[in-house]
């Protein structure tokens, strides 16, 4: 049987708002698995990642579509040697110098996952599905070590769920319950990463009143979100990189 809940009350109202990004990531532990949203720089929660960099947790597994650019955001986290293992679909980019170096030196582990399989594994983690079959990667080197089974006469690969201890996500708006709306293609991995983490921590451009997000337009329902913190004017990676910024722990 499942755990009995205590009847001890916490706050009189559900309020997931946190004032500072530093407080929002304060309890992330060494060895944690962190899901980091974003496709390229769209949806990348840079301020939360920098707060994690300053917080100091090490030996992290990071699940993110890419492996960072320049020397900011995820790349800065990798550069500070906080990341032991990356799970991603496309670590290489024109500006992924930090990951490239550590990977070539054998200093960081990589699990390469096709982008759609990565997305589906994360969704499965959020939806209580431990494993599923997909045609993707059948007959390729990426099926190695995985069970292959035929459905409708075609080989399919068994893929397992991905869950995170924490998700770091960027959205557009949030209310105190944690309902989220996103901006354009910055939505990408946010909704499924919020589902798949024990603690989803979300930076938003704007906190709004409960009820301000139309129930028809909520993209991530409050139940999937643990903490929201307002970052009204988030940095964008391109600008930081063009400015030659090299973010180090502070």
């Amino acid at each position: 049987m499942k755990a009995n809940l205590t009847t001890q009350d916490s706050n009189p109202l559900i309020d997931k708002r946190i004032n500072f990004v530093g407080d929002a990531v304060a309890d992330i532990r060494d060895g944690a698995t962190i899901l980091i949203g974003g496709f390229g720089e769209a949806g990348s929660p840079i301020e939360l990642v920098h707060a994690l960099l300053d917080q100091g947790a090490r030996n992290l597994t990071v699940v993110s579509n890419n492996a960072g650019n320049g020397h900011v955001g995820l790349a800065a986290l990798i550069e500070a040697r906080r990341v032991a293992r990356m799970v991603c679909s496309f670590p290489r980019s024109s500006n992924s110098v930090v990951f490239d170096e550590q990977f070539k030196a054998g200093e960081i582990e990589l699990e390469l996952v096709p982008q759609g399989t990565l997305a589906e594994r994360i969704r499965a983690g959020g939806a209580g599905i431990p494993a599923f079959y997909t045609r993707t990667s059948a007959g390729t080197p990426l099926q190695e070590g995985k069970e292959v089974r035929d459905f409708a006469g075609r080989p399919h690969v068994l893929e397992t769920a991905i869950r995170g201890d924490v998700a770091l996500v960027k959205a557009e708006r949030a209310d105190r319950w944690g309902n989220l709306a996103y901006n354009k293609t910055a939505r990408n991995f946010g909704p499924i990463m919020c589902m798949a983490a024990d603690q989803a921590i979300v930076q938003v451009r704007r906190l709004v009143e409960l009820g301000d997000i139309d129930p028809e337009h909520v993209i991530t329902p409050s139940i999937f979100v643990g903490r929201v913190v307002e970052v009204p004017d988030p940095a964008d990676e391109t600008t930081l990189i063009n400015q030659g910024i090299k973010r180090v722990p502070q």
Partner: protein
Amino acid sequence: MSAEGWTPDEIARRVAADIPDGSFVNLGIGRPEAVANFIPEGKELVFHSENGLLGMGPSPAANAIDLELINAGKKPVTTVPGAAFFHQADSFAMIRGGHIDVCVMGALQVSSRGDLANWSTGAPGAIPAVGGAMDLSVGAKAIFVLMTHTTKDGQPKLVEDITFPATSRGVVSRVYTELAVINIDTDGFVLRESAPGLAFGDLQARTGAPIRRP
């Protein structure tokens, strides 16, 4: 309390008091729905309805009914500020994925191992119907059962082994009846509270498996 123990309202009030503040809660169709009427002042719970609504509010006024805004029991409801609509796969991702804090369900039988029977009597010829009961009972973080302590003809519903078809195995954490509130741990039933004036021996006599006193 009456001679038969707590009234249904008293039980519902007790469940409502026990649900931690801030919980996301699914109330099963039927008697569990009454729990929503007894949320203590100042406690904020968010109600999930598996047909696709989080932030379910009370029944609407007769002139404000929208037949496309209903709960899992197919009765008209309302939304509260902070509500969200979503489709069935997302709704059951919440359930199966372990995001619902507490689900309160009715039951035919609960075993001392936490097995739950609440979807079918197994009677030949009956039309089987399961709805979301199996998904909710495996998925919610805590399953509270709210039921009568015995059947109409006095048979225990808290049993050693369920005899009706299982809904899920090893999932029930606590049972609320008119006679007692009983926790289930790895060793079986544990008394949490019994109705005033009820002797422990009488409670045990109406229960199909040993109850430990904490």
